[in-house]
């Protein structure tokens, strides 16, 4: 339960971090909050030759609003994001989801970008990013590119990030007027990984639902003109299409059941907020 030996680098600037990544590539890991990475290193599921610590990189510790988006820098912790005074007003979905992201004690170090980078299928931030249709900013010594979340997360714990790229920020669209948002989750213990989590957005006759914890990555479906009598059937079809599997936390049957139940609850809650 101890990590394998590694060399620890603490760059003083983003450029230094990018140089280190360009040099070490696959042999390096970025250490931000470390709340998933270090646990996996303790288990030796991950063995890195070099750790590049960006947790104290001041230029990446920011939350900015621009172009109807909230941009969160790579060293911003989940606790800092949760305390951002405009969160509830600008991003009601994230405001509802954040209390479920880990625990009070892990949010003080865990970062928003780190959670996106880790891309756990049951974690809340990738689910919100997918549902809202956000994007991920990646920088390398070759330049910067912005990928939509659907292009970014490619599967379970896998992303389109190249070995020399640093996720410098993530962008969430801000609240749209006339749109209602809701979040619901079932976990064994508050703050644990979701057995099933859902994020709903309702605007006019458009209903969008994102589901985490069931498929290998957050999955989003949109319906137009979904009325009350059609919700159960639509959710049932969606639940079967996700192809959830059994594991020691829950069976696929239970997950589908949760999805139907939480999905309906979230859609109804989002509808109430949209009107």
């Amino acid at each position: 339960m101890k990590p394998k030996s590694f060399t620890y680098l603490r760059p003083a600037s983003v450029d230094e971090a990018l140089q280190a990544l360009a040099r070490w590539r696959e042999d390096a890991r970025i250490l931000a909050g470390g709340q998933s990475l270090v646990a996996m290193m303790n288990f030796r599921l991950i063995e890195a030759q070099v750790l590049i610590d960006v947790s104290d990189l001041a230029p990446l510790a920011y939350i900015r609003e621009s172009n109807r988006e909230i941009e969160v820098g790579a060293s911003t912790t989940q606790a800092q994001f949760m305390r951002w005074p405009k969160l509830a007003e600008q991003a009601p979905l994230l405001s509802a989801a954040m209390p479920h992201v880990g625990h009070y004690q892990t949010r003080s170090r865990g970062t928003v970008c780190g959670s996106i980078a880790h891309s756990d299928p049951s974690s809340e931030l990738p689910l919100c990013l997918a549902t809202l249709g956000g994007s991920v900013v990646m920088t390398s010594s070759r330049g910067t590119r912005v990928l939509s979340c659907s292009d970014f997360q490619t599967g379970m714990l896998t992303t389109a990030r190249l070995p020399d790229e640093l996720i410098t920020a993530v962008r969430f669209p801000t609240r749209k007027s006339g749109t209602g948002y809701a979040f619901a989750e079932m976990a064994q213990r508050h703050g644990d990984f979701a057995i099933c989590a859902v994020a709903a957005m309702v605007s006019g006759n458009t209903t969008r639902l994102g589901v985490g914890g069931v498929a290998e990555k957050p999955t989003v479906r949109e319906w137009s003109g979904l009325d009350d009598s059609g919700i159960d059937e639509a959710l049932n079809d969606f639940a079967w299409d996700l192809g959830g599997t059994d594991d020691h936390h829950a069976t696929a049957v239970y997950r589908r059941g949760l999805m139907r139940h939480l999905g309906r609850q979230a859609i109804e809650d989002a509808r109430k907020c949209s009107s």
Partner: protein
Amino acid sequence: MLELKEGQRHLISMTLDGQEVRGSTEPRMLLSDFLRQELGRSEVHVGCEHGVCGACTVLLDGKPVRSCLTFAVQAAGRRVDTVRSLTDKDGKLNDLQNAFRKHHGLQCGYCTPGILLSTEAFLSENAKPSEQEVREMLSGHICRCTGYVGMVDAILETVQKRASAAVP
């Protein structure tokens, strides 16, 4: 760029419970192991070593962190507080610790140092939490003895007493 080579020991210092301390560590050493093995601070309890149980929680610059998910080198030059920081210099328990004792908020005591530290950090940010907020904060710790009810009572009583003491 700071570079600490693998397999080599590096001298680091930190302010631990208000005192400057030094010790040597490899980059791979966890803060929990550094505190226990290099500095002999066995009040830092190690439970699961993968960030789930919360027993090893310490305060890093006043914020609760899992010391098993933090490398010792990351705490270099920073302030670290263990449960020792809560008692006065004669070892007298503080009000929260006394409330835990009164309400049976502990039995074997293994999870207690982490829980006390989390609670103090939490109360410094939110002086008047609801019972639900206290329970959510406690969800970051595992206690296999008490069932948490005594802890919740102890914390809520401390909240109340501190609030009434703060009234002029």
